[in-house]
């Protein structure tokens, strides 16, 4: 195993751990709140971290297959956040 591969593996493992921890911390924030706004923001952060996890998985397994799921989450993930936010602010999300 070359040094570069080793370095890559190390970087990937570190990234995995970091993203997983931040995902869990976001979830803790989601639980403790205290306002609904905090929780929605925490969910949005979880979506961002999920993109990170998916991309890292693709790199780890050496496949391009997971790019499109990551793309979809990135492109559409904000829609539910916006919907939550509109609900809190206006009650009616399509008006």
């Amino acid at each position, binding site marked *: 195993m070359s040094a570069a591969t080793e370095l890559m593996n190390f970087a990937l493992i570190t990234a995995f751990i970091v993203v997983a921890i931040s995902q869990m911390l976001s979830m803790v924030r989601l639980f403790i709140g205290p306002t609904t706004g905090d929780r929605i923001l925490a969910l949005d952060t979880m979506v961002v971290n999920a993109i990170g*996890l998916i991309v890292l998985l693709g790199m780890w397994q050496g496949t391009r297959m997971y790019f499109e799921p990551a793309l979809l*989450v990135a*492109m559409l993930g904000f829609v539910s956040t*916006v919907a939550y936010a509109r609900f809190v602010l206006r009650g009616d999300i399509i008006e």
Partner: protein
Amino acid sequence: MSLFLIVALPFLGALLPGLMNQAGRDACSGVTFMVSLAAFIGLLTNLPSVLAGEVVTVGIDWMPLLGLNFTLMLDGLGFFFAFLILGIGLLIIAYARHYLSRDDNMGEFFTYLLLFQGAMVGIVLSDNILLLLVFWELTSLSSFLLIGYWKHLPEGRQGARMALAVTGMGGLAMIGGMLILGQIVGSYELSVILQHRDLIQADPLYVPALLLILLGAFTKSAQFPFHFWLPHAMAAPTPVSAYLHSATMVKAGIFLMARMWPVLSGTPEWFVLVTGAGLITMVLGAVIALFKHDLKSVLAFSTVSHLGLITMLLGTGTAFGAFAAVFHILNHATFKAALFMSAGIIDHETHTRDIRRLGGLRHLMPITAVIMTIAALSMAGVPLLNGFLSKEMMLEESTQTVMFNTWWLVPALATLAALFSAGYSFRLIAHTFFGPKRDDYPAAPHDPGFGLWGPPAFLVVLVVTIGVAPFLVEDFVKIVTASVLGTTAELPHAYIKIWHGLVPALYMSLAAVGGGVILVIMHSVLQKIWDATPRPEAKVIFDATISSFVSLARSLILPLHNGAFSRYAAIAAVTIIGAGYFAWITGVQGAATRAPQAATPVALAGWAMLVAATFGLVFLHRNRLLALIMMGIVGLMVSVGFVYFSAPDLAMTQFTVEAVTIILLLLALNFMPNRSPVESTVLHRVRDAFVAVAGGFGAMAMAWHYLLRDAVATPISEFHLANSYKGGGGTNVVNVILVDFRGFDTYGEIIVLGIAALLIYALTETLLNGPVRARLLNRVPDQPRAGGMHPMMMVVLTRVIMPVVLMVGFYIFMRGHNEPGGGFIAGLIVSIAVVMQYMASGFSWASSRLRYPYHGVIGAGVLLAGLTGIGSWFVNKPFLTTDFTYVRIPPFEKFELATAAIFDLGVLLAVVGAVMLTLESFSRLARTAHTKDSVHPMDIDPSRQASTEEGA
């Protein structure tokens, strides 16, 4: 003409009256007439071969594994009945054109009539008994529609329901009987079954099969004790009564008995059941008919009585009995249809059918009087009319029939029935047309136009012709009788004659006619006695029976199905756990074929988050918004999990469905309080918790079990993997399964999806048209709302991203066949792109830019997918066979074109339409009166302010 076409024509033609409805009543009835006429002529083209004694058969395999084949046969009996059905049908159509008023929807009427006609022709031409059952049920359904045609009349609806309940029950019984018969013989083809008389009658299951089949025939043909539905079906328009109760529906049971005659008849069981029921029905119907006042009721009970007569003749099991039965079927159809039509004319012109309010009509309606008098005299059995001939034959047969070792029983009852039959026929004439002219008719009676009296007049001409010159039809009747008898018995050598000499039948006939005259003279006295005698009322008994069934069903179902979701879920979960546990302890467990994978720390973290979110959901579920957010986490982590387990298709579907679901639920939450109240006791919750935990462990155990081993030796996935590229032309197995291997399932699913969306639309539309509308419009939010309905940032962002999202959708759709993606995911992506515009720029802004209604998009999708499937028929392949080819357009790489892609486009359209229609329906509910619809997409728009300032 091919038999297929004769059966298919009425069904295909049933589409036309509805289409021609707008073109006027003449066009509508004309096209119906032409359809029937075409089928009738087609039938006549087969006459030469039938006269030559041949049996015309055609057939294609439908479901050969079940023994259900689309085989038709035309022999003398089938031709005879089809001739009556189509021939009298033509007269009825001509009559109905003038009978129905302008308020009646003629297209609807003729559609039902043609459906019914097709089903009847199907019954009499079927060779396969399972196919016959299909048509049998179709007649029950279409006659239900016809009897209940006047939906505004409660009697019409109740009569239709009663007819459906009784004949439907009989039909169910008959299915059982036919299946037994098929099992005994080993074939469901009539032509085979009819060859196995000895085999069937020697079988121990002969009696059950006979009972079940007779139950079907007796209910359909209104034999005692199922005769009560027929008079109640008289609430139908008269053309329906004339058609159903003279030549078609009620004759279906008779037809069946005649068809099965060679194999079922001749045993003591058959004789006692059929002749017995026929005799009782014959006498009972005739006696009741004498005391009814409604013209159509009299005719209804007389029909019951005459059906009893035919049944009795078939029951004797002799060749002469069958001969007489066939002849009487013909005669009854002619005079009874004429009588019903005449009764309809009287109702039409005088606005009453009550015989007590009529009388003296011979001066006012001479044509109708002549027609109805001749027909009624024929029914009474007066010489030189056709009714006399078959009644004589019946009486003669009755003298040869000995029941319960009593020689006089059958002849006496037959004479009694004939006597009452003459009585009510004479009363019909005397009390309607004779007597003094009255001045209190509800309407001024006069003869109708030719359109109404023409059809019955034609039939009456037949009545007289057959009555005077029976030799004209004798050969035909004998051919029909020969096909009833099959190989079982020799054709009788008798002739149909007017004068038989001084035989017992003549004296009986004389006694009947003479007694009939006396009955009419004494009628007012007899009526008083009849009214004073207590009698069981069929409708009351029927209603009581039905309501006791309903309460029984309620007492069984309501404890299980009380409207509380937690109860259904608990029952379902406990049942499934129990069944699973039973399977587990009784089954054999195979050895594990796979080792568990090692859990990585990251996977464990994801799992821990899923569990935590689920726990959070359980504890926070009373706050509805928080519960939704927790569900969002679960959905997100499940999507990531799908990626982790190398299922990018599932991940994409999961994520897009998640986004749409959250929007839908938020739209719904808008109408609900923020918190759900506590409605259950602690004990309830503990019980539910137990069920839930047990269910969870059960699911886990099953997942664990199947993750370690294959359920079958070679899993189906291996077939899919091996054939996906070779057979379906795609390397993405998931997509090839959806559009190719399981394309038919997918087709069904998009239809279901479309129906669900349309239902949601219909429900919300009903809400908006109902009393709830005011409450919805005046709803005041429970907490203060932030200002700014349509923030500029969001409007701009969503518009910029829209083409990008659509492009991604297109890309995901196009690559679907070979790489993760496909029509379903692409459809969801497109929907989200559109929903963004709704959310950002507002409902009215977005919907005013809508070019095609979402209903249409759903329809286009389903149609496109269906047409793709049908397309493969043109190259002689089964429905939804896909084909593909490779194309190369320089300078691009070679790419693949598959018909599955068009199917997938249909899926995409259906998904977009269904999702958008659902979301739009919900958001329509949220329009309130006090927020006015925004004209502009943005609340604050600098460019607009600038322009108004310039203008000012």
